[in-house]
């Protein structure tokens, strides 16, 4: 039977302004975690109740550790950022479907935007063959070196041009006209939509990792829906990001809504 996990923090550092890396000792979760899944983590502040979904950035089965990378946005992530090494974090997980890595895929395009970047790290670790990673940030790129360490070619765009190409991730992506077996992406909805359109043009299958405000995180409350096409007809349906996702096929999502 699954249960709440109390994971001890063994490393916690600010890797960019308001961007934190947290390494947790979480054997139970590590045992079954798949790339692209997330945990639902309790951030404690006055009046807090619901857990927050944070993607799994790295899984280390050797040391039974889980790495999360998160941005401080509101009260929850603020409270999380104030936790100390040695403290325990309450969470459930791993949750969601994760990325699908086809056996025969050899040429991969990985696209990340801002705080959508972290879950792609474990992905790159697990991909085999040629891997190109395209990352877009407002100003402070994160994890670039680590992607390179895992053997990917990394291309970076920043909106202010401080690092890499000035512009967004689509600008560097379109430049390359690169054909591949699979696209994997995570980032803001507007970026994912652009990726979906580009993937359709290029006729490459693309997976997009979506975000939505959640309550239960396990598929019971139907709070975190994403509008998707029904295969059989013109009709559509609301799928649950936490259970049916967070990873969807880019051509399955109804974007213009």
């Amino acid at each position, binding site marked *: 039977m699954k249960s*709440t996990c109390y994971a001890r923090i063994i490393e916690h550092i600010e890797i960019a302004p308001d961007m934190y890396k947290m390494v947790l000792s979480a054997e139970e979760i590590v045992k079954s975690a798949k790339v692209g899944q997330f945990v639902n983590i309790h951030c404690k502040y006055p009046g807090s*109740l619901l857990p927050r979904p944070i993607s799994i950035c790295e899984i280390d089965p050797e040391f039974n550790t889980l790495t999360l990378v998160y941005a401080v946005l509101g009260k929850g992530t603020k409270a999380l950022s104030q936790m100390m090494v040695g403290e325990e974090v309450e969470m459930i997980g791993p949750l969601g479907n994760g990325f699908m890595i086809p056996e025969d895929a050899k040429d991969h395009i990985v696209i990340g935007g801002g705080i959508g970047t972290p879950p792609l790290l474990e992905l790159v670790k697990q991909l085999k063959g040629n891997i190109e990673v395209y990352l877009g940030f407002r100003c402070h790129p994160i994890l670039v070196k680590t992607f390179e360490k895992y053997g990917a070619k990394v291309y970076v765009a920043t909106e202010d041009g401080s690092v890499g190409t000035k512009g967004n991730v689509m600008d560097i992506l379109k430049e390359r006209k690169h054909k591949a077996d699979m696209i994997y992406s995570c980032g803001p909805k507007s970026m994912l939509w652009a990726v979906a359109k580009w993937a359709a043009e290029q006729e490459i299958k693309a997976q997009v990792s979506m975000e939505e405000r959640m*309550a239960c995180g396990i598929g019971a409350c*139907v709070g975190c829906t994403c*509008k998707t096409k029904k295969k059989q007809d013109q009709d559509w349906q*609301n799928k649950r990001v936490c259970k049916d996702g967070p990873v969807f096929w880019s051509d399955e999502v109804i974007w213009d809504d």
Partner: protein
Amino acid sequence: MTKVNMKVNIAGVELKNPVMTASGTFGSGREYGEYVDLNQLGAVVVKGVANEPWKGNPSPRIAETYGGMLNSVGLQNPGVDEFIEKDIPFLRQYNTKIIVNIAGRTIEDYCEVVKKLGDADVDLLELNISCPNVKAGGVCFGTDPFMVEEVTKAVKKVAKQPLIVKLTPNVTDIVPIAKAAVAGGADGISLINTLLGMAIDIHKRKPILANVMGGFSGPAIKPVALRMVYQVANAVDVPIIGMGGIMTGEDAVEFILAGASGVAVGTANFINPRATIDVIEGIQGYMEQYSIKDLKEIRGSL
């Protein structure tokens, strides 16, 4: 250790303990079944089912508030046919009672669902009258005693299982509403459904919920729920299922002392997937501490 008897009888149906799930917070039990042994629950109250599949409201549907949350799921559900086909067989694998929560937009809608459930293997029906009555200009059924009596009567006439009517707390006085449900033939009353609430994102300067307003639940609302259960318990003679903010066994005991026969755990599931079990164990611990052999001894005993 004293041997405690947690059994309760709700409208003729015996539950092994008073703890059930609040509709809409537990799906049909499949997901939480991975975290809790469903055999231990008094009953599973499934999410609202309608005559046809409902798509629900646009996202975002969830907002957190101080000690509470808002939802605007909008009763998304796959319809009663799929429910009967898939969820009842799943739940019947477990030794727990099945209570079906029923949604509708017209009296005919409600009756249609109840008729389809007539031959289905379910134990109790819970009529959710917090839905807007489209034939009455969208006014919520549950806010008017006449409509409450009318819809209860109509549904009772076609119902094969005992009928619980679930009240909305968004009313000036809950007592005439509860009395109307009983007058209409309700075999039990459950309350409270969610309060109507709102939250605003001050940075985007927009309501957090796409639907602007939503149903407010969680520990924050417990004082309102407890007050209404107390008021209704003193006004009607049918069994009451109390809910609203129950997080622990202590919370549940408050509801029982206020007069509830059963209690339902809702939002707490999202915070702690084992909340239902913790509540059962908490009530048991309380009974043992005070040598209470049957919950009857303390029910409504304020």
